[in-house]
């Protein structure tokens, strides 16, 4: 399925000076990528609905109303106007977040008190039972999809060939130059566009081998049945509430990754990038072209 080298599919002759199309993404990578998009979107939205039922995060094994929290989203009544005010607390800092967090607009009921707004949650209306159903169903799909991707990545050489930084990419000067290119929003062209740049590779490796496995393990640590069989998970994360906190923080990191990822796709050419993730074909822009 996957060529061991990015294969030369077609060269468009009349495109000045020379626009080359390579086969960048194997079918399985494309397929698992889009299934993953669906899973992560629904996991995030149902996860935010779950969070709404106890919008506070703690450290250790226990945590409940009254125990000092690391992060909390709530609401207060403004004494002057009598209107509800959304309040988010992060490590002692108090932020007024009315409109988005704590208090937000609901098309049917007007301004309502809820941690995350209706437009961000699955289902939109409060339902803990349905949110649990969605979250766990999508978690299963995510795990099967991820397993298929990992097996393929190992067997096909995708990780070694496409994601592992090459020796020359790891030289400090190269890394610094790549950082500088990112700062200036310069995208690679020509030969350099044939492979992922080093920051891109490190970001993908971190997501695939660190952030996503952390999500799975910290999620499992919240299950009393799983921790009965694998009590070491409680020690790994420092307790059930710590696992819940880490689950939430890493979800935030994943959202950050997706925002940067989509931004970079637009920067490098949204049509080309989107086509490559659908058909596999990616056009290399010439070094000195338009």
């Amino acid at each position, binding site marked *: 399925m996957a060529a061991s080298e990015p294969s030369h599919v077609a060269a468009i002759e009349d495109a000045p000076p020379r626009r080359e199309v390579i086969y960048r993404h194997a079918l399985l990578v494309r397929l698992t990528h889009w299934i993953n998009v669906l899973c992560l979107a629904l996991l995030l939205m149902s996860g935010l609905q*779950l*969070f709404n*039922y*106890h919008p506070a995060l703690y450290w250790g*094994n*226990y*945590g*409940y*109303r*009254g*125990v000092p929290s690391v992060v909390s989203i709530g609401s207060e009544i403004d004494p002057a106007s009598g209107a509800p005010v959304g309040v988010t607390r992060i490590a002692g800092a108090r932020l007024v977040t009315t409109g988005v967090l704590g208090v937000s607009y609901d098309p049917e009921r007007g301004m309502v008190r809820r941690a995350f707004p209706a437009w961000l949650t699955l*289902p939109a*209306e409060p*339902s*803990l*039972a*349905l949110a*649990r*159903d*969605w979250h*766990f*169903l999508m978690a*299963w799909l995510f795990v099967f999809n991820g397993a298929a991707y990992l097996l393929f990545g190992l067997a096909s050489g995708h990780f070694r060939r496409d994601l592992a930084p090459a020796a020359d990419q790891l030289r400090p000067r190269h890394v610094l130059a790549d950082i500088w290119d990112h700062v200036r929003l310069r995208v690679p062209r020509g030969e350099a566009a044939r492979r992922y740049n080093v920051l891109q590779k490190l970001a993908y490796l971190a997501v695939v081998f660190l952030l996503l496995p952390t999500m799975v393990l910290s999620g499992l640590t*919240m*299950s*009393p*049945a*799983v*921790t*009965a*069989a*694998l*009590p070491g998970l*409680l020690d790994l994360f420092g307790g*059930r*509430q710590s696992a*819940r906190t880490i689950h939430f923080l890493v979800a935030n990191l994943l959202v950050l990754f997706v925002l940067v990822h989509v931004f970079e796709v637009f920067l490098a050419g949204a049509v080309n990038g989107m086509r490559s993730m659908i058909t596999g074909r990616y056009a290399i822009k010439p070094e000195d072209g338009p």
Partner: protein
Amino acid sequence: MSRRISRRGFIGAGSAAAAGLLVSGCDGVLEPPSIRGLLDFGQLLSLHAQRLLLSAQPLAREFSAADISPDFPLNGTSMPNSFAYFQMMASQFASFRLTVDGLVRQPLSLSLEEIKALPARTQITLHSCDEGWSAIGQWTGVALSHLLQTAELMPNARYIVFHCLDQLERLPGRLGFYYESLDLFDALHPQTILAYGMNGAPLPVGHGAPLRLRVERQIGYKNAKYVTRIEAVDRLDHLGRGLGGFWEDRGYQWYAGL
């Protein structure tokens, strides 16, 4: 002490639960039936995966006295709102009786004193609510498996139902009363106890006095409070709205190991 459960037995029980869940889902209010079927499939996958993971019947982690949380939130009923319960409370639950009946050869009716005279188990465990909070408490009680052995469970008994004294919703008959159910896989587990003591003191009213269920490998709402009757049954569809528990009848998962 706990009877070993055959693999076939729990798969059978699991499949029965699964069939129940599949029949259950078609509320159609919030989700079209096709989506509901998918969500039910997810529940089945979780049930079977966790049963496989727990096939050696490990114990949930037990903590030390120093780990007990300073407080333990109340959820659901904090005081059953009935004259009969007030009377019982006034008598320090001297008039309380626990019934064990249904598919048993020797139905039991036990006073609280008689229950306290049975072999006791004390465990300090983590209680996890589906809302997201958790607390650590110490529970003292009698193993459910001991009661079921004494009552001589019949071979066709598949589920153990816990009928409670508290009415969570005002509805005719027993429809608004709390109830819960377990299959034998969890019912016969050594940490599944009927607790009358909490943190070294008699079980407080808010936590289900005089007797509550502790099922340590499942989420909070399975841990029924104010248990007054334990009934062994072969199916769940004739109780409540047929889904095996107060919250299950209102859309929640019957299996709550996650």
